């Protein structure tokens, strides 16, 4: 993103310079708040107002028709007593942790590899990027077809999949969801690591080579520490993404078998748009936002991410 159009600006500057000798007062020539206002109002109306409203709705009883009635802490106390809710929180945690554990090593390795500058890497990285472009719907439908027990790949590779239906067991269904998430989102994290790996100063590697450090040592002693900021960025994205996994659950498993893949995001959707318990759903939504924010804040604090100057640039 370099800007090299300086000459054109020079020429306009000359043509503008006609008998204006007074200096403008400070603030003149700078955009005021009015420039930001339309976007702020629009965004406030469709993102921030709903976020405040979800807090209000979580204390109401509402079935989607008529108007919400105040219900105090009723939704919250029901949530705490609801075994499915407790299980769904646990499942959200499992998805998040498994997703991070599987995706992080793959995307670090791919990202560092792709940071090299040979031509074949550029071509391959372009191919690797494709899953990220597709809608989660398309990806889920595609994988459901590929893994269909009767017509998909498992029917051809019984040595790997056995006779069973992957979607019929909890372990199989969770495995599919983690696999599909990995397939789709590894490119995003790879890209984050690729950008960061390119920014590692080459002198560090030269010095290490002179000291006789091999490739593996260089990776663990130079590359990984230098990627620290990116690991935090990527992890926060994974945590928020993992906790809110919804589309894939809806399309691939419908929360099943039973409630074995009903995570909190899917349970919220069911409560609202299947059981028409919008108050209870709002409480779950709020809980998810709080947990995601809390985890992100804790990660930022623990790693000292907020004290690193480079990450604050441009923010």
């Amino acid at each position, binding site marked *: 993103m370099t800007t090299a159009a300086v000459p054109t600006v020079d020429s306009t500057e000359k043509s503008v310079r006609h008998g204006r000798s007074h200096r403008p007062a400070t603030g003149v020539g700078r955009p005021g708040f009015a420039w930001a206002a339309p*976007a702020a109002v629009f965004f406030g109306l469709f993102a921030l107002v709903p976020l405040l409203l979800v807090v209000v709705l979580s204390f109401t009883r509402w079935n989607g028709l008529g108007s919400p009635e105040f219900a105090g802490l009723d939704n919250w106390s029901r949530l705490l007593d609801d075994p499915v809710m407790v299980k769904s929180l646990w499942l959200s945690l499992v998805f998040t942790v498994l997703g991070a554990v599987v995706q992080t090593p793959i995307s670090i390795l791919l990202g560092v590899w792709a940071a090299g500058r040979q031509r074949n890497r550029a071509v391959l990285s372009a191919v690797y990027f494709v899953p990220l472009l597709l809608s989660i719907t398309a990806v889920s439908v595609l994988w459901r077809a590929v893994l269909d027990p009767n017509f998909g790949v498992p029917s051809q590779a019984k040595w790997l999949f056995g006779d069973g239906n992957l979607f019929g067991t909890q372990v199989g269904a969770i495995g599919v969801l983690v696999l599909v998430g990995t397939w789709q989102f590894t490119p995003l994290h790879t890209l984050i690591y690729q950008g960061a790996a390119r920014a590692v100063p080459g002198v560090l590697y030269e010095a290490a080579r002179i000291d006789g450090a091999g490739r593996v040592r260089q990776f663990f002693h130079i590359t990984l520490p230098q990627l620290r900021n990116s690991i935090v960025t990527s992890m926060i994205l994974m945590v928020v993404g993992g906790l809110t996994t919804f589309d894939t659950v809806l399309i691939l498993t419908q929360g099943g078998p039973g409630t074995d893949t009903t995570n909190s995001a899917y349970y919220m959707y069911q409560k609202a748009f299947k059981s028409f318990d919008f108050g209870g759903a709002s409480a779950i939504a709020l809980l998810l936002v709080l947990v995601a924010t809390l985890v992100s804040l804790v990660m930022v604090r623990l790693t000292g991410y907020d004290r690193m100057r480079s990450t604050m640039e441009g923010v």
Partner: protein
Amino acid sequence: MKPRPNYLAGFGSLIWLFVVGLPLYVMLIATFQSRTDYAANGPLAFPERFTLDNYVNDLDDGFAQYFLNTAIVTVCVVGIVLLLVPPLAYAIVRSDGKATGRVFRLFLLGLAIPSQAVIVPMFYLINEAGLYDNLLGVILPTAAFAMPVCALILSGVMRDITPELYEAMTVDGATPWRIFLQLVLPLSKSGLSTIVVFSSLQAWNGFLFPLVLTQSSENKVITMGLYDFQTEHGVDIPGLLAAVVLSMLPILLVYLFARRALVQGLMGVGGK
């Protein structure tokens, strides 16, 4: 001193190529054969008889309408983003008031709001506004949720414009409007194309807002069409996969032409 090639890494990257490529291969070859051939040959076999019937059937089955609806949503979302975000980014970068700084922090906060968190109140608001089952009801929240990333990308690009250029124009008495039109917009072309690609991708692939905010088949977007197709004709795998291919064709075309803009935008968000 040139390092020797890293065979292990090369091998690993080939494995990943297989992981990425296999489903795409299964998808493509399935769509070119009839249901019976697909069932008989299995998902991995190369088809003997090629046919385009799956695509034709899907288009007859309502996908042409879903395409049109998705295109309308996408164009409107991009329009709103292009109208609102450049002035916002300009104000973020150049305004000296405290209020704009606060607005920017609100947008950064918005980056972290998952759309599920607001879907119930959104359903309430859109209903109250009388926009339920109306494409406009999908367009407005989709545009709002595309804005934080776009604001971040575009303000980053505008920050790269050197202050001397602004000052030169200011000294000459140029108004903010003039600076915006003659300096800021022309020098932010790369950022503008990035936010166009980015917001159109989000609009084209949107799922949750259409799922919850529309109902009738004349207002269905393509992701909803796919979802319904799967629940209704889940056994017609070639037909289903042809619909998946149809849904992603425009995106792959955009990707071919705008890869740079997209990758840079994503790197700018995560990589700094």
